[in-house]
């Protein structure tokens, strides 16, 4: 990852007649990084990414690509995958790829893109007859035909089954290994944790946290989570334990700075510990703490 910023965003505002979708945000995207935009529905992340893609004009603020306003160079060097994109009907996978391949001046050999996205066996299939995962691979391949310097992925794995999602992550990882800059929006915290070098969390059009995933977690949490099935514990807990309870439904979650002391307390209450689990804090915990909202599609 380079120290140069491929995208510099300052005081970016997008206002609609009835709402402010993006409310004056500032951030930089380092070249060669995978940069995540996280947030719940309505947070403004799709509007932000469409502003960065140059598809909509900001009300005010600036977006610089390699130090210059978005222009023809950016169009030639950006690869974009929308949440959902319709392609022309009655075209095969090969023809859809060829169409977009012809739209750029600088192009990767089509065969390389086909191999990268594992589309070899699908080339003669009508693009309307692809499964969700196959379609996402085609849309990613279309976003890669111009060997982009910056790749925008807007919720690329929404709606995919876990297997297809993990396959997609492997694909993104390979693109990352080629030192491409990736801007990724996602609802899946696990996805952000696996793929993103840096991220921002948005809510109501504003950035509420930013940094690397580890930095964000370390700066907000010093504790770990201890989980047990709820029915193993009495309804009424001693005060020192009650103060550590984070959640209680089927599972009871304790947020603890001293796991040893917590286990001693549980043992003293003769709580069986066979099903006890200890986990680190996650980005989802962070988001819940920051906004009180769940990250759902």
């Amino acid at each position, binding site marked *: 990852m380079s120290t140069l910023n491929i995208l510099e965003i300052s005081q970016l505002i997008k206002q609609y007649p009835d709402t402010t979708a993006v409310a004056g945000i500032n951030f930089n995207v380092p070249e060669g990084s995978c940069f995540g935009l996280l947030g719940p529905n309505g947070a403004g992340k799709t509007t932000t990414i469409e502003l960065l*893609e*140059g*598809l*909509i004009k900001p009300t005010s603020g600036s977006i610089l690509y390699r130090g210059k306003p978005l222009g*023809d160079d950016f*169009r*030639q060097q*950006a690869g*974009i995958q*929308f949440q*959902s*994109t*319709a*392609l*022309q*009907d*009655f*075209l095969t996978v090969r*023809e859809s790829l*060829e*169409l*977009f391949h*012809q*739209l*750029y*001046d600088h192009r990767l050999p089509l065969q390389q893109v086909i191999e990268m996205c594992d589309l070899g066996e699908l080339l003669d299939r009508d693009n309307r007859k692809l499964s969700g995962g196959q379609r996402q691979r085609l849309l990613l391949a279309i976003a890669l035909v111009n060997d982009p310097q910056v790749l925008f992925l807007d919720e690329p794995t929404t709606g995919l089954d876990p297997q297809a999602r993990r396959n997609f992550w492997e694909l993104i990882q390979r693109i990352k290994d080629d030192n491409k800059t990736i801007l990724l929006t996602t609802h899946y915290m696990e996805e952000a944790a696996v793929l993103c070098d840096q991220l921002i969390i948005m809510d109501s059009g504003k950035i509420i946290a930013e940094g690397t995933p580890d930095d964000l977690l370390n700066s907000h949490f010093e504790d770990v989570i201890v989980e047990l099935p709820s029915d193993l514990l009495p309804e009424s807990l001693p005060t020192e334990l009650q103060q550590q309870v984070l959640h209680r439904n089927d599972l009871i979650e304790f947020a603890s700075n001293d796991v040893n002391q917590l286990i001693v307390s549980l043992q003293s209450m003769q709580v069986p510990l066979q099903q006890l689990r200890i986990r680190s804090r996650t980005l989802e915990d962070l988001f819940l703490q920051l906004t009180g909202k769940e990250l759902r599609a």
Partner: protein
Amino acid sequence: MMRRFLALLQARNMEFLRDKSSLGWNVAFPILLVFGLAAIFSGDSRPMFRVSVLTTPAELAKKTDSGPGEHRFLQDPFIQFTEVSDQQLAIGDVRLHKSDLLFDPTSNHYWINLSSEKGHHLEAILLGASSTSPQRLEVSGDPVRLIDWLMPGILGMNMMFSCLFGVGYIVVRYRKSGFLKRLNATPTRAVEFLAAQILSRLLLIMALTVAVFIGTNLFLGFRMEGSYWLLFVTACLGAMALISMGLVVSARVSSEELAGGLLNFVTWPMMVLSDVWFSMEGSHPVMVAISKALPLTHLMQASRAIMLDGAGLAEIMPNLIVLATMTLVFLGLGSWWFRWQGD
């Protein structure tokens, strides 16, 4: 730029040609109409004898009614008399069997078509009703069958629907589905996309129209007095005007329902007022003025003039100028209003 244009053109052509149901309908619809109407109107159903009566423009202007004159022949209630002032035009009507006989009471001349059965009957009636023998002048020419008159209308109507819906509706569908948004994320310029849509539709509609014309002509032998090349150029220009009109309708709309409504709003007046099924000649001046403002009217008038009257470039030039002007105006408006994404 040319590479992007050609890629978009090829993709749109493939999409159209592989949509078998749509392609089939574009071919079958005009063929069914031409043969259906040819069968329905194969007999001569005109109930009356039609006589043109030559008079001077000044006398014609003075007339407050169109009743027959003093000559006994002109009192016959079973003959439809129409007063005309342009002798050459009136003789042309006799030649084309639009009129069964032309009579000039002033000079006591009459013109009949040698191949007109009704003309011979009218001649006998005229001679019987005249105290002095009028002088006979002969013209020749085959009759214009109703199907000869209707055929340009049917092909023109098919072109109108195909051009307007084939461009207007498709662009709206692309916008609604997000395909235009995806193209907008590439270096493609609006002019490249629009030019590809226009040329694709022009090539395909002209190929289909020529094929339908040749195919039906083999069986029905349409009257063709003028130049096929001039007819082709006229059809191309008409198609361009209609395609451009479709671009204006689809420039910003992203609802297929609204697009359908707007396209019907512009196609139905043309169906009724553009000489597709009947001539607007003699209609109320306001209706004639509206008719003249529609591109299909000029396509109809020019193509019929070429096919039925043998008109040359000079005669149809006014129609071609109107079609070219409309094309430029609609293209300008459509390009100016065009948006990749809906409002």
